[in-house]
């Protein structure tokens, strides 16, 4: 019974990791850009939501709804003004620029918000729970998992059933030919990063309600997100959800055996998957 409990808890944690990873997966899938500042962007989004909460007195969900368009705009401008300039055949410049962005974001947040750890007020939601029969689960972790599934479902529909998604995939295949179809690749890439920032806002909402955060925790979130993306297979959004679940379950299982093993178990699971399936569990046919 304890193992079922552990498995369920692990899946819930996996939902959070999948939310961390979905934006990263989307951006990588469309423009082959590895954003090393992704974790810091999640933390920055959490601070933006916190600011809205403190200034307006609204609850974190409504605050996130207000923050999302602002962060979409930030993502759009970031891509258009900075990241588009370094995209190309060489993968090193985007890595260097996003690494620099990561350092700048961490120090900027330290300056603005201090090193104190903060938390989004969840109004008792963090201690609420539901009895599912086999296991009692926290309401907030369950909402996290549901949001991750919903976010990935919506992103998939957008990619495969809308004109914007078609433009995303065409530009990802071949930006020059896409431009010959009247598509502006710079705009399409900026839309993708803007969209990724909306998913980052959702991730930040749950990160901030579930645990404390401070300006220094971004890089560790990036590692979990990255592992989820790689385990799932580069460029596959449902794969990213599965990847998040695997890392989450591995971590809870590890913690069940020995509390010190939580993080280590996640890394071991990641390495094991890489050993057996070097391209991840659900790789895209063509990469």
């Amino acid at each position, binding site marked *: 019974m304890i193992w079922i409990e552990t498995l369920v808890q692990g899946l819930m944690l996996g939902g959070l990791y999948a939310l961390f990873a979905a934006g990263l997966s989307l951006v990588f899938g469309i423009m082959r850009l590895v954003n090393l500042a992704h974790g810091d962007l999640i933390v920055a989004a959490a601070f933006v939501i916190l600011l809205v909460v403190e200034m307006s007195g609204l609850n974190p969900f409504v605050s996130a709804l207000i923050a999302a368009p602002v962060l979409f705009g930030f993502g759009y401008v970031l891509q258009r003004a900075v990241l588009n300039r370094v995209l190309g055949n060489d993968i090193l410049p985007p890595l260097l620029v996003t690494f620099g962005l990561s350092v700048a974001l961490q120090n900027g947040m330290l300056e603005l918000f201090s090193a104190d750890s903060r938390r989004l007020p969840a109004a008792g939601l963090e201690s609420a729970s539901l009895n599912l029969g086999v296991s009692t689960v926290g309401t907030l972790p369950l909402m996290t998992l549901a949001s991750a599934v919903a976010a990935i479902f919506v992103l998939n529909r957008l990619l495969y059933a809308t*004109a914007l998604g*078609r*433009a995303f*995939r*065409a530009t*990802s*295949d*071949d930006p*020059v*030919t*896409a*431009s*010959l*179809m*009247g*598509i*502006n*690749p710079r705009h399409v890439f900026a839309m993708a990063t803007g969209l990724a920032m909306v998913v980052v806002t959702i991730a930040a909402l749950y990160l901030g309600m579930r645990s404390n955060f401070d300006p220094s925790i971004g890089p560790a979130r990036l590692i979990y997100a990255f592992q989820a993306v790689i385990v799932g297979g580069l460029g596959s959004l449902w794969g990213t959800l599965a990847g998040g679940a695997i890392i989450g379950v591995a971590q809870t299982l590890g913690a069940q055996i020995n509390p010190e093993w939580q993080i280590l178990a996640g890394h071991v699971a990641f390495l094991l998957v890489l050993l057996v399936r070097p391209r991840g569990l659900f790789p895209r046919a*063509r990469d």
Partner: protein
Amino acid sequence: MSLLETRGLTAAYGQFKALFGIDMRVEPGEVVAIIGANGAGKTTLLRSITGVLRQAPGMVVHSGTPIGAMSPDRIMQRGVAMVPEGRRLFPSLSVEENLLIGAQARRGDGPWTLEAVYALFPILRERRASPGTALSGGQQQMVAIGRALMSNPELLLCDEISLGLAPVIIRDIYAALPRIREGGAAMVIVEQDIARALSVADRVYCLMEGCVTLHGRADEITREDIHAAYFGTRTEAQG
């Protein structure tokens, strides 16, 4: 006013000069063939017109507006469409999605819809859910042409549409060109197959080593003129 005009168009890839002062024009509704051997500068000319290779603004003029320095997407939104060499279908998109992506630059109503393209190339309707790259070369070329038509262009640029295709397929594709013309689009056809090109064109430009070596009406140019211009045994311009 010409639909498209190039004025002293020059182009280079780094140190290598590919075009030396090309003057050409396309009138509304006409079919212009651009012929020439490999490396004559035909594809470079199309790359310059479409903005893939940026130029001085005045070197390429579309309906009176200098477009030489515009990005390809802006040029396409002005009513130009391109069938690129090698088809360049999007592998992640199905046949139908490849066609729909062509409508991205659509500016208004026109004769070309998904239905009209399927009527022109019925095989595409059967294959519409397949990935574009799973089709045969000839079918891929049909998708590439249909994709360009979906924007209802005033000017359709076709780069080497017969290259690498079986003769029977080339015949089918060329059989569709008069129907495309009836839709009102002017066409520029870059082609190595001279006889095919002359069979559909109103006017012909022959390029050699980045210069126009022959220009004239397709029905007035003789085999000898073309032979001379194509192989460089005589270089004065005609017509």
